């Protein structure tokens, strides 16, 4: 009997490498065709944009590995920014804590409804998305807050050398969620839950709590992304973050996380987010009308999921 250790050519690693290869090819093509692409200025710009979606996508990965789904994250991005801006007079730490806490409460409600009341995650988080968007408009009275204190821009706008704190935050979040998923007991729980909930429960996993916590993590990270975004654009807008939920889900799926749960990696999600960022950025630089972005993104998602299904059937093995 020969060894079957995950080799370089096993379907999973192959898919991960395929993603990297596609990303590399894209980068090379764009570098050659538009001189402004491969400049440090543009790359850092691109990474700044990826950072916000990337942080949201890391939380989404956690929920999706556990077999769930979270459509409310885009609205939570706005909620947290608005709450922080309004609470700003109370001081930086308090305001930020209030914003992230508000986000986490949304996650708690999502998780509670999904795990205790057993409402479908799609329905719960879709409803929550419109509720939270509405609430953000209510508490901000429909206006963006512009006169933000100086600490507000810290994560979004200030740099360490050439790199912004936003990018560094993304890296930290990615490493943190990766370690949690791969090396903590809770992470293992999430994979088990997404794969077979009943078996997990009978093996002593508190499935309700584990699920709820996943939604709390997702929402809290969305709240954190809201802070980065507001700093970047120097504006706490109640309509910020629209469509982020779909972009995050796109990054997660392109990154190889299984719809329905049980399998997925943060590394894949990071590559997925980078890919979306590079494509968006490239299309702009190439002068393609922004309307095409959606078309290209959608095609890539379908291609990625199709590839995964093909490999699962053994066609690629």
């Amino acid at each position, binding site marked *: 009997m020969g*060894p*079957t250790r995950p080799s370089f050519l096993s379907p999973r690693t192959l898919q991960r490498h395929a993603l990297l290869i596609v990303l590399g090819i894209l980068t090379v093509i764009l570098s050659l065709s538009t001189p402004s692409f491969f400049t440090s200025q543009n790359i850092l710009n691109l990474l700044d944009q990826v950072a916000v979606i990337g942080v949201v996508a890391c939380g989404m990965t956690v929920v999706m590995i556990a077999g769930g789904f979270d459509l409310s994250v885009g609205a939570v991005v706005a909620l947290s920014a608005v709450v922080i801006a309004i609470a700003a007079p109370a001081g930086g730490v308090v305001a930020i804590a209030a914003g992230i806490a508000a986000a986490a409460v949304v996650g708690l409600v999502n998780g509670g409804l999904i795990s205790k009341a057993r409402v479908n995650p799609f329905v719960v988080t879709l409803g929550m998305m419109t509720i939270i968007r509405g609430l953000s408009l209510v508490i901000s009275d429909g206006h963006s807050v512009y006169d933000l204190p100086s600490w507000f821009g810290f994560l979004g706008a200030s740099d360490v050398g050439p790199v912004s704190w936003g990018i560094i935050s993304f890296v930290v979040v990615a490493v943190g969620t990766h370690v949690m998923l791969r090396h903590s*007991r809770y992470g*293992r729980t999430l994979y*088990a839950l997404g794969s077979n909930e009943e078996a997990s429960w*009978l*093996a002593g996993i508190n499935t309700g709590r584990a699920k709820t916590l996943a939604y709390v993590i997702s929402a809290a990270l969305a709240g954190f992304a809201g802070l980065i975004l507001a700093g970047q654009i120097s504006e706490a807008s109640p309509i910020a973050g629209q469509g982020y939920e779909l972009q995050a889900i796109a990054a997660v799926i392109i990154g190889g996380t299984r719809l329905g749960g*049980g*399998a997925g990696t943060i590394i894949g999600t990071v590559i997925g987010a980078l890919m979306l960022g590079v494509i968006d950025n490239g299309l702009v630089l190439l002068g393609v009308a922004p309307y095409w972005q959606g078309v290209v993104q959608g095609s890539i998602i379908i291609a990625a999921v199709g590839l995964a299904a093909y490999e699962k059937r053994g066609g690629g*093995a």
Partner: protein
Amino acid sequence: MVMKDNAAPSDRAMRGRTEGEAPILELVGISKAFAGTQALSDVSLSIRPAEVLGLLGENGAGKSTLVKTLAGAHRPDSGTILLNGEPIELHNPRDALRHGISVVHQELKLVPDLDVAANFLLGREPGRVFNQMSDRRRLYEEAGALQQRLGLDLPLTTSVSALSVAQQQLVEIVRALSIDASVLLLDEPTSALSDSDMETLFTTVKRVRDNGVAVVFISHRLDEIFELTDRVAVMRDGRHIRTLPTAETTSEEVIRLMVGREIVELFPKTEAKIGEPVLEVRGLSSTAGIEDVSFTVHAGEIVGLAGLVGSGRTEIARAIFGADKRTAGEVLLDGEPVAPRTPAEAIALGIGLVPENRKAQGLVHDLSIRENLTLAGLRKFVRGGLISQRGERTETRRRIEELDIRPAEPERGIDTLSGGNQQKVIIARWLLCEPRLLILDEPTKGVDVGAKAEIHRIIGQLVARGVAVIVISSELPELLSVSDRILVMRAGRVAAELGREDATQELVMTAAAG
């Protein structure tokens, strides 16, 4: 092969004429490898019309792979399949069906949300696609007629997910039999069935055989093989070892061929010192339908739970384990009253449960052997908030060795293991937790003779260490030989309690049937 036809012209000898007949299905040099495993190597085998061919072999011998190859679910790497002498190519399950090859797979393949009738006739519903509604009545008529012919009485309008495993198994069998097949492949169809359902199945199988259908029947229970089959084919390590007429062989010979060595005793019973009560159950009732159940299990004791499928054996286990809600009565563990509300709480108290339905309740399909094995006891390996990889891997390797799980590759996906080896992983999961009380619900379902003896040996080791054990099994000879005491369940209540010396198959059956 020539059959010595010197016996009186018995039923079986009469059918011996098929010996000379041309095979309907022939496999020539079939090989199939999965990453790292040669599941089938150079298998040649012929299947004749109007016979039941028993397929025997240890867990992982390649039986299911062979069936899947004939069902069009796997493509062989090399070799030919001949149907009536003509080579055929099976690219997918539809091809197999078109050639009259019908299959009941080891793992059920029903559509849980559809009702029984729809599952019977899945893909072959009467009427046209756009005219489904008006054809509903015909669907139920046909489904009804179908099960009547087979002497069954399943609730046609109930969705399959609401049925018991045994009933689901029957639905699958009816579906396979409803196809006008010339070859019928049954991969462990009896592993979930009660005795009466088994009778129904056997009668049916014999009837289709007498109508000229070739049947391949896989089972780990030799009594069934000897009752039902005309010839037995033995497989070992992916190879076809030998095919013998059933009438001319013995279980000893078959086991020797399967295992490649002698197995001395099938159910070795190790004597353990019986100590203080570990589990005391008093007047227990639950929402799942058990009523006023009382019994005690001592340290070092094995208590067997017997009864028909649905008599409440599983429900007792679930009530103690916190998986079903208790409505009355109390449970004492080591003399202390306990009331676990969830399996997690029961595990923390030192209770373990190997569940009845491996696929739905035991296996975490996307994870590896290692991850499945350590799922319930993962806490052990946590150091500073993170899982100690070295600790987890060392322990996994040790358990794989202890239970002789094959292949011994911790990182292999659990779904690529044979059924018996999957079962050993689930048992290992609970051994790892070192419980005070271990409940095993059908622990040897789908497990080969060698592994079965090993599982009994492991249970023996557990009780020798003073663990209290409850074994639930539909296989009476097994239960009689491993248990120190047997409780017979009927309709949610304890109908009889029999000591090891007094218990006989007849007594248990009588008590179970009421």
